[in-house]
């Protein structure tokens, strides 16, 4: 069935024009982060939903950048917001809500990495580290991404975070330093170490080696 749509009178407000504002809850809260934090602290009923709708995409993305495709993702996303709702009163400057959320997310991801390391040390083979997509159904791109995370898995936690935030998420160096709670100089040192470790380890993986060589030759060809 095809239908004709009639706007019966001039629009009072335009429907959502920003991408991602697809749901009513998000569209319903248009205040600043400061106002949102104030509402949360006052216990306003819609404030948790507004915060979740505004930032859950960002938090999810950041978790995926650090951990890759991960069956624990829903639990970690939950963990981040549970932490945020419990400790929102500790946020000193409400204007820095996003930065604070970033730190909570990064620390949650770091906790997950460390938990898994401990399990590995205990020789407990955790099912959540099993790849969730059969190799045969993966595209080349997906296979490459999986291999990158296999390499990251073998790197130190701090280096892995540095690489994920800077190279994969594309955060600026000061943002990365703030997110990981270290000075800029320390972060730069970690990143250098991470880059070197990644390139060394990636060179041992045929798929990644080939991909890096291809990127290198494309870049070389252009310059």
């Amino acid at each position: 069935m095809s239908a004709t749509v009639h706007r019966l009178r001039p629009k009072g407000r335009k429907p959502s024009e920003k991408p991602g504002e697809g749901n009513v809850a998000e569209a319903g809260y248009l205040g600043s982060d400061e106002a949102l934090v104030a509402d949360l602290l006052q216990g306003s009923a819609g404030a948790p939903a507004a915060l979740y709708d505004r930032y859950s995409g960002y938090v999810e993305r950041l978790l995926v950048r650090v951990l890759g495709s991960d069956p624990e993702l829903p639990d970690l996303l939950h963990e981040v917001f549970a932490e945020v709702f419990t400790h929102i009163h500790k946020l000193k400057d409400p204007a820095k809500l996003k930065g604070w959320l970033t730190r909570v997310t990064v620390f949650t991801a770091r906790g997950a990495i460390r938990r898994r390391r401990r399990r590995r040390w205990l020789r407990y083979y955790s099912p959540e580290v099993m790849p969730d997509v059969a190799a045969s159904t993966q595209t080349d791109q997906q296979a490459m991404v999986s291999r990158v995370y296999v390499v990251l898995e073998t790197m130190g936690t701090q280096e892995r975070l540095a690489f994920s935030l800077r190279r994969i998420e594309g955060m600026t160096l000061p943002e990365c330093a703030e997110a990981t709670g270290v000075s800029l100089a320390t972060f730069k040192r970690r990143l250098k170490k991470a880059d070197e470790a990644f390139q060394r380890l990636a060179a041992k993986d045929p798929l990644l080696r080939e991909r890096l060589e291809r990127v290198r030759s494309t870049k070389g060809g252009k310059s």
Partner: protein
Amino acid sequence: MTDSNDLLDTLGLEIRQSQDEALETGSVRAQVRQRVLSQSHRQRQDRRSRWLLVPAAAVVLLAAGSWLLHEEPLEYAIAGDTENARLGQLLAAEQHPMHLSFSDGSGVRLAPEAQASVPVVWENGALVQVHGGSVHFDIEHRQDTRWAVQAGPYTVHVVGTTFDVDWDEQSRTFLVDVSEGRVRLEGPDTDGVEVAAGDALRLQPQPERFGEALPETEDEPAALASDGADVPQGEPAIEVDGQPEQPGHGTAEVDGLVGEQRPSGAAPAEAVGASEVRRPTRPWRRLAANRDFVGALAALDHRGFDSTLRRMSAAELYEVAGWARQASDPRATRLYEQVRRRSPGSTQAANAAFLLGRMSGSRSDALRWWLVYEDEQPTGRFAEQNAGRILETLSALGRRAEAAERAEQYLGRYPEGAHRRLAEALAR
């Protein structure tokens, strides 16, 4: 060192793009939302209870009682009745308006001659089916409010707002008129349209296509309407008559929702009285609901992929194309192209263009699709991502002047966009 930086940044960008594709569905966020918010709600309730615990244990018991009551499904009553109304009961206002009061404070008023029913209630809302006439809604806004109104093939999703829905079964004309707040509409040719306070929207099928029957096959004579694509994933489909696949019982319309299964001459009471909530019946829908997209496609193959898809609406086809894309099934491209042919000018057709761009084997093909999307949906849900991908592709194709010009536009429009760094570099 700069070479190494470039190399790793390029690899990172590829990873980012691949991950963003997987994140687009938003299914994890939706899945976690309810958990997070109900926990937050309980935390608030607990905090309140703790304060109340100090003065007197009796008050605590009262608070706990009210908390428990709050977690129970809503109840509703017809004004003037001493008992609560039944689920699925036909509510027919005759010469006077009929008022319904819900236990969450929401109110519904049926204008004279209007008919409606409430087949489902949750602890935070209800589903109201408008069978005909004008119905006014005044929904109490609460955390996680979950109210929906169905009229014919259209579903209005509500958080907290005041609005009217008018449904004329005979002409199949739907009207939503929003006084306060904002609602989201789903249904044929609407695809998530939002209607804000001060707006009214009327939808009317084009007469020449209305009632257009689908070809039927021997093994599956009924329409696919019981699995209507407009019922959100994870939401229960509402089976009106308990026999959704009964041959000859539906209008077999392309975009038919459950409500259209009722024979046009039958009184709504017959149907609604027996209503019940159930999970999707089609095996491919069940599998897809569990994110087993490979299995869903295999189930469609088993039934006859092409013949089954021919009987689907463009919305359903779009959904199946999404399964194919997520399962890395090569048929995804063909399916998205079919969506574009079936519903030219629709949001789904435009979204299909965007996704075709992402699946294209060559940059120039991808660019062509993304320019189509930009043209068709300049403020659509993928607009920002689409603009970013155009930037990347123009840059990769060496079309620097165009890329620089578009980068300026991108930064003006999406100063916090995901591709801002690339745009800044290109704009320099």
